[in-house]
């Protein structure tokens, strides 16, 4: 992959060759390039700012000042800090406690909730669980039918929701059905909604109160721009999210929104959606996403080559 940031930083530092010492001004210039790269990757403006402040210290330290390849050193520091920020707790589902364990998927319209619900059901089924899929989206035309089709494809039961039902009542009924039929996991697919839609956010809170889900996962599109911060913030404030699932990651989006959301929610990114097929679900690797946000292939081999 074309390595823009490394190239740019290389240029920043090349000017110095033969001019003697590396100065604070050079580092500042390098950090400016890093900041622009983050913004180009859709990292939120404020998140990028805080991040740069954080790494300025390390970059100004001995590590870079005395390095023979300061450009690569800066890239390495940025990459490592980014991966650390994106990482954190082990990305597994919280399935302990009383069964059936409820998992709830929430997010903006079209982010991939329904598809991801089916993907998680398949993932759990492969682990020997007996999940029940429950459509509680009574809004989008044919949303219930969509989940039924997906359930049939993977051989997972889907609760018989009716579009004229109330979503909160539906969720409780589905839970009762899961208990009655001996399912150990209940996956709730909720309707897409705007984070500023107060009545619809209150509906999610009511479902949460009734069903008591072990996980409330924000399903977010990897292509999301600056709005990711507001979206994550509002969903988190309303529901106390337990994690994030990033979808449509197989495209060419740089995915900076992940950093924005991770910073706001401070809960792990648990899975990545990497296609429309139901097995296109991957566990999350912070270092890979860090490289991608910075617009680099394999950053470590690059650094070694330098």
């Amino acid at each position, binding site marked *: 992959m074309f390595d823009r940031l490394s190239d740019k930083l290389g240029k920043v530092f090349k000017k110095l060759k033969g001019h003697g010492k590396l100065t604070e001004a050079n580092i500042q210039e390098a950090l400016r390039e890093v900041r622009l790269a983050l913004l180009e990757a*859709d990292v939120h*403006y404020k998140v990028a700012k805080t991040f740069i402040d954080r790494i300025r210290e390390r970059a100004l330290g001995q590590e870079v000042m005395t390095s023979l390849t300061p450009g690569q050193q800066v890239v390495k520091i940025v990459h490592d800090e980014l991966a650390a920020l994106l990482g954190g707790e082990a990305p597994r589902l919280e399935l302990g406690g009383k069964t059936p364990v409820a998992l709830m998927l929430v997010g903006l319209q*079209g982010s991939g909730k329904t598809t991801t619900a089916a993907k998680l059901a398949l993932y759990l089924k492969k682990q020997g669980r007996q999940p029940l899929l429950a459509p509680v989206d009574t809004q989008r*035309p044919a949303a219930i039918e969509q989940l039924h089709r997906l359930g049939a494809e993977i051989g997972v039961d889907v609760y018989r929701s009716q579009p004229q039902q109330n979503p909160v009542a539906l969720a409780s009924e589905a839970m009762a059905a899961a208990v009655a039929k001996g399912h150990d996991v209940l996956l709730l697919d909720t309707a897409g909604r*705007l*984070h*500023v839609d107060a009545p619809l956010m209150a509906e999610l809170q009511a479902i949460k109160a009734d069903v008591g889900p072990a996980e409330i996962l924000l399903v977010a599109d990897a292509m999301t*721009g600056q709005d990711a911060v507001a979206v994550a913030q509002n969903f988190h404030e309303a529901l106390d999210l337990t994690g994030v699932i990033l979808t*449509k990651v197989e495209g*060419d989006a740089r995915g900076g929104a992940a950093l924005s959301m991770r910073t706001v929610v401070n809960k792990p990114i648990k899975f990545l959606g990497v296609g429309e097929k139901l097995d296109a679900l991957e566990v999350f690797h912070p270092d890979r996403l860090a490289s991608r946000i910075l617009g680099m292939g394999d950053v470590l081999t690059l650094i070694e080559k330098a």
Partner: protein
Amino acid sequence: SRTREALTSKLDRLFLGKKIIDAELLEELEELLITADMGVETSLGLIEAVRDKVKRKELTDPARLKTHLKAEMLTLLTGVAVPPLHPGKPHVVMVIGVNGVGKTTTIAKLAHHDLEQGEKVLLVAADTFRAAAIEQLEIWGQRAGAAVIKQKTGSDPAAVVFDGLAAALARRVDKVYIDTAGRLHTKVNLMEELKKVARTAAKQIEGAPHEVLLVLDATTGQNAINQARLFHEAIGVTGIIMTKLDGTAKGGVALGVVQETGLPLQFIGVGEQMDDLRPFEPEAYLEAILG
């Protein structure tokens, strides 16, 4: 609206008590533009131009900054022509875009609009891939009052279009909307499939598809530029519709998209119902960004 107020007060605060355009003001402006998803290149380009003007003393009063910027941004958004409506019937419109942006819903909105104008509309369910995509379009067709031509899930989309256009000719409809499956612009085989659909349409009706509308989601960041570029390269887009502008996303990437492709923005989506479609008005759009 809430977002409008937030922005207005933000920009007002920017100018509050300011006598000169200084570095601090420009930095805050940078934040305003970038957080609207206008992207590094467009935002910094605009700010650089302001800085130059300030240097040359052509622009000194902070109060005039907004008017100036709006004018600059307007030139970035215009200079593109909306394709003329071809005289023949039926007029065939293909709607394309990445997954989940709002293609199917937008078709319902466009059909509803045309039906209200007294036109006869036919919908073609050429998304044969996504689960229940056909059912979704059928429900919208019923609500709007438009017939839907469909085949089974999994059938060849080009074959559905072939049937659909034959029906359109037989029924003498005015407008045909072809709903296509969402696909990432990076997937070569799926882009080929789209080309095949377009070719099939052309064989059936001269000049079809007469319009190819690309749907972009306002929540999308800089990737929208790649989407527009690659879809345009592959099949020749004629116009852009930006959805989900009823949220807090500003959709500022539209400036970059217009710069990159020269394509006109034609409509915006402002909700999930059939009447939540508006013509794109550059002034109002820029007002929402700048306050």
